[in-house]
């Protein structure tokens, strides 16, 4: 009771209470009263500790009211305008702008080593810990997502439409290759003749990119001819096509082409 009164640093109430307790203790002869006395001591010592810590802060003169004022200033309070509203910023002494806490937050983030919250950029998954099977798929998507994290946010939208365009292109190129071979089954095409667009370096690179899908999926293959130049031909898909492809050698090759070479 009257804890606040005792905490007042100017008050001697705590001392008085202790003295009174001392006096009362002489009259104690039952266990229950002794227990009460013990309780009192605990409370008194807590209060004593609080008082001491209040004194402590006073020694270092931390003025919380001034701190609050300075914080408001930092947040951009406008002290000249008189506000005439219903609103939550009702106190006299100024108008706090709506981005006040934004400003504060901007500064605050510098003081925390907070782990950025993890979100998928491609954002289509729910983030609950899933059933085991789904997790494997999520792994792949996650690693793709991570690699693209460096990309600015706008590209997100473009990527998605690109995927379909790519597949269409790949199909188109496959058809061209197949058509050529139907007409002329024994002449493989020179790889470079096939991909290079004499008018556009960018297109050339794109063509190579699409062709690489065909190779990866086993729909076409590249060999070296007698002159050690690469040629490309579609693979014959017989009934057991898949098995055959697996038996064949699958190699990874890196082809580089720069503008000078292309010219």
């Amino acid at each position, binding site marked *: 009771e009257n804890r606040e009164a005792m905490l007042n640093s100017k008050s001697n109430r705590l001392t008085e209470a202790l003295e009174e307790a001392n006096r009362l203790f002489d009259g104690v002869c039952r266990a229950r009263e002794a227990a009460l006395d013990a309780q009192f001591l605990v409370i008194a010592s807590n209060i004593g500790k609080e008082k001491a810590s209040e004194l402590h802060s006073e020694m270092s003169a931390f003025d919380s009211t001034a701190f609050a004022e300075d914080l408001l200033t930092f947040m951009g309070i406008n002290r000249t305008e008189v506000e005439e509203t219903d609103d939550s910023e009702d106190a006299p002494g100024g108008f706090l702008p709506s981005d006040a806490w934004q400003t504060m937050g901007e500064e*605050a983030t510098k003081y925390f080593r907070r782990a950025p919250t993890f979100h998928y950029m491609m954002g289509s998954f729910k983030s609950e810990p899933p059933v085991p099977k789904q997790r494997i798929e999520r792994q792949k998507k996650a690693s793709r997502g991570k690699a693209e994290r460096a990309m600015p946010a706008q590209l997100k939208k473009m990527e998605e439409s690109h995927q379909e365009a790519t597949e269409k292109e790949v199909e188109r190129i496959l058809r061209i290759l197949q058509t050529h071979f139907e007409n002329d089954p024994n002449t493989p095409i020179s790889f470079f003749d096939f991909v290079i667009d004499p008018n556009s370096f960018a297109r050339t690179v794109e063509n190579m990119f699409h062709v690489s899908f065909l190779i990866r999926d086993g729909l076409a293959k590249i060999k070296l001819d007698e002159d050690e130049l690469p040629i490309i031909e579609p693979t014959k898909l017989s009934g057991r096509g898949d098995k055959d492809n697996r038996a064949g050698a699958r190699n990874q090759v890196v082809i580089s082409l720069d503008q000078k070479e292309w010219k």
Partner: protein
Amino acid sequence: QVSELVQFLLVKDQKKIPIKRTDMLKNVIREYRDAYAEIVDRAGRTLQQVFGLRLVEIDTKRHTYILINNLPRAEGEYLCRDKEKEKMGLLLVILSFIFMKGNSVKDSESSPKPPPMPHFSFAPPPLTPLFPGALWEFLNLLRVYPGKQHRVFGDVRKLVTDEFVRQKYLENTPIPLTDPPEFKYQWGPRAEKETSKKDVLNFVAKIQGKDPTFWASQYSEAEATP
């Protein structure tokens, strides 16, 4: 297993609620319990090397973990949503207040005047305290009121006593033998890991346009704490 755990931790960390070891065992490690320590170890290394994050155990009894940022704070853009930023602003203000006031402040809101206890008799003139030692009274000065819906923070009381406490930024513990029970606020283990007394003192100094050494005892305490 390791990459599954890494992913699990990253997702769990979104809400900033500490992750329990039992959850890790149940959802990810399962059959590989014996290799648990090794898996966690490797996951920690991956998090550090790939993401620059540190996996820290904040409760060695209950085995709960948090992720913190290992990288030095970069100047400039910090990728963070607005809502998050505003909360961090409020949090920093609260943490500063607590530290400057000696590491512990009362939750003044939860202590109505207690009924007089019969054993001790005092003659009290009831003081009406403006208690700058207490948290909510300080926040009131910033136009933040526990009972009132705040334009930015909504239910502020909930944010402070519930969210910040669950995330372990703050700790709200009862003061012994108070009746009805009164509570005090202190820094939580996440706050201790994610920031430091020194940083916070620098913040206060910046806001008030003074040198941190102006507050001698807080300064020496801050220097003494790693």
